[in-house]
């Protein structure tokens, strides 16, 4: 274990941002800290970096207590969301900052800077000052600076936030390889669930209450701990409908639009309990009229979404349902459509607590590795 946080408490004046947060990260692992703004992700990174100090709790890096250890002695690299480049230094000097701190020879520094610049494709702008760099180049320079010192721990604070969509996509594909090559332990902060799923070996989902769930992308997506987490992952957002499951001869079922929908047999005692059913839009599919147990849907509108087509429809009771399907596949654009539910992708949540009700007799896809 490279990095461990135990019971971290941090308040600014009376505003408690972190209240007993614990987290451990394995060597060489990329852990994504995911959550909405204001959850304290950035504060957590700064505590690890040592630029602010916790009110309570301990931070250990490589088994060493970091209490009183200055930021420059922690062996970390960090990329900031706002880049935080040194405006009076050119890109070379920026990238070289971690190297000049260690009395490296000039030629060794030049060599390292050039190697990293080549890797990040910024060798042509090395003599530019930050204000002469495009946003994408700034972002890469900041990343290069964080990597240059070959730190044991790399803290990346939403580094793709301020770059355009195309570049963000490119970097998302490039980053994992880059990070693995560095062999560093990475903590990556983001608000974008796609980035979290694409980059994380594990994801820690954080909200105002602290870390709510930690797991592989599969675990988080396929077995979210509660409604809030289910809503944070996936676009379009998961469909959530109030239901009360009933026990029938044919097994446990819920009723949607008057149509009975069987659910997994593993739910023992949920009959009669106020629940919310969560169905991901891609777990719904359009079927022909007359298909058994198909649910009729009044189609409101169709909106394309990144190679998917999202249909917004109303059930008989006026509840909204979103259905997502690969672009180019058939589906109704107006009028009435009929949908069938893939029962293995149905989640049941307790309406009172919002927590997911875990079926006992079913193996979820948790054993599958990360993407």
């Amino acid at each position, binding site marked *: 274990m490279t990095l461990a946080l135990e019971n971290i408490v941090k308040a600014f004046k009376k505003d408690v941002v972190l209240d007993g947060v614990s987290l451990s990260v394995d060597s060489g692992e990329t852990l994504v800290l995911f959550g909405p703004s204001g959850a304290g992700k950035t504060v957590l990174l700064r505590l690890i970096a040592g630029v602010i100090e916790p009110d309570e709790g301990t931070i250990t890096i490589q088994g060493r207590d970091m209490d009183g250890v200055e930021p420059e002695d922690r062996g970390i690299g960090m990329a900031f969301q706002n880049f935080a480049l040194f405006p009076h230094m050119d890109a070379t000097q920026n990238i070289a900052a*971690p190297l000049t701190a260690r009395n490296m020879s000039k030629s060794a520094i030049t060599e390292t800077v050039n190697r990293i610049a080549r890797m990040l494709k910024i060798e042509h702008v090395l003599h530019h000052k*930050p204000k002469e760099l495009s946003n994408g180049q700034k972002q890469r320079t900041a990343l290069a600076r964080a990597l240059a010192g070959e730190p044991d721990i790399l803290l990346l604070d939403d580094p793709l936030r301020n770059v355009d969509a195309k570049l963000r996509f490119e970097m998302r594909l490039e980053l994992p390889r880059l990070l693995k090559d560095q062999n560093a332990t990475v903590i990556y902060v983001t608000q974008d669930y796609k980035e979290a799923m694409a980059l994380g070996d594990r994801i820690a989902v954080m909200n105002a209450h602290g870390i709510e769930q930690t797991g592989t992308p599969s675990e988080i997506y396929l077995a979210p701990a509660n409604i809030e987490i289910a809503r944070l992952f996936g676009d379009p957002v998961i469909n959530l409908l109030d239901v009360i499951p009933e026990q029938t001869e044919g097994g446990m079922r819920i009723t949607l639009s008057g149509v009975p929908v069987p659910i997994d047999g593993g739910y023992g005692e949920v009959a009669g309990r106020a629940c919310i059913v969560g169905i991901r839009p891609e777990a719904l599919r359009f079927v022909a009229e007359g298909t058994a147990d198909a649910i009729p849907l009044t189609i409101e509108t169709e909106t394309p979404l990144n190679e998917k087509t999202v249909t917004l429809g109303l059930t008989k009771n006026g509840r909204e349902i979103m259905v997502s399907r690969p672009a180019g596949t058939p589906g109704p654009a107006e009028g009435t459509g009929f949908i069938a539910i893939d029962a293995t992708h149905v989640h049941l949540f307790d309406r009172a607590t919002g927590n997911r009700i875990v079926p006992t007799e079913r193996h979820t896809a948790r054993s599958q590795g990360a993407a």
Partner: protein
Amino acid sequence: MNTTSPLERVLRGIAITLVILFFMFPIFWIVLMSFQTNATILQVPPSIFFEPTLQNYRGLITGQLVTDTSSLEIKFMGNLFNSLFLSTTSVAVGLVLGVPAAYAFARLKFRGSEDIAFTLLSFRFAPPLLVLLPLTIYFQQLGLANTYGGLIWVYQLIVLPLILWIVRGYFEDIPADIEYAYRIAGHRWWTTFRKIALPLAGPGIAAAALLAFIFAWNNFIFALVLASADKQPVTVGALAFITASGVQYGQIAAGIILSIAPTFALALYAQRYLVEGLSLGAVKG
């Protein structure tokens, strides 16, 4: 929307010219006066046509003040040197003390930091006369009266709050993340202060130094009371132009020109540096 008619442009030009004339005229007049004898200055009506003379400047530089009736020795060049020395040294001392203090006030939030910073600023509010009498007595007892050291010390009352408050603002404008980034890269805080904070606050420090220099240069009351003839700056030394036989307007004008020359040159030199401003473009996306 932003198109202006030619008429508007002409009118605007005239207005600007008038304003400039209004403010620049006294300076222009003083320049003219410095090249005239008292006689031509005082003639009625005044004329901008006259035979220029360098006698005022010659008098100041040689130290011989020649009036209509007599010749008087004055130490204008000595005063000028005193002004230069006192102001420069005061600002230098002020920077050495004030810049690190400003950094501390900007970056470290310690108990009472706001109160201390405000107390320092409040020195600027109090009328100097209030402290002058006790100060004079102290200085005499301490042997600081009529020394450069004593004057420079008192001048800190003028210089230090100014530097502290201006420079503090500039330090606060530097995003802390930039300094954090340098620390995390492996540099000590002292190196970070020198390599990041100081260069980035450079224009601010220059502006504060310039302003402090002007304030120190223009000081009159402290020097009047605490310094005798050989330590007096030009502001006090200029009193010598009011002689028994009349006010020497020509020499005063020449003295003014000579004494504003250093600050003027400094301002001109620093202007381009000041205007450059903070280039923190890298921080904002």
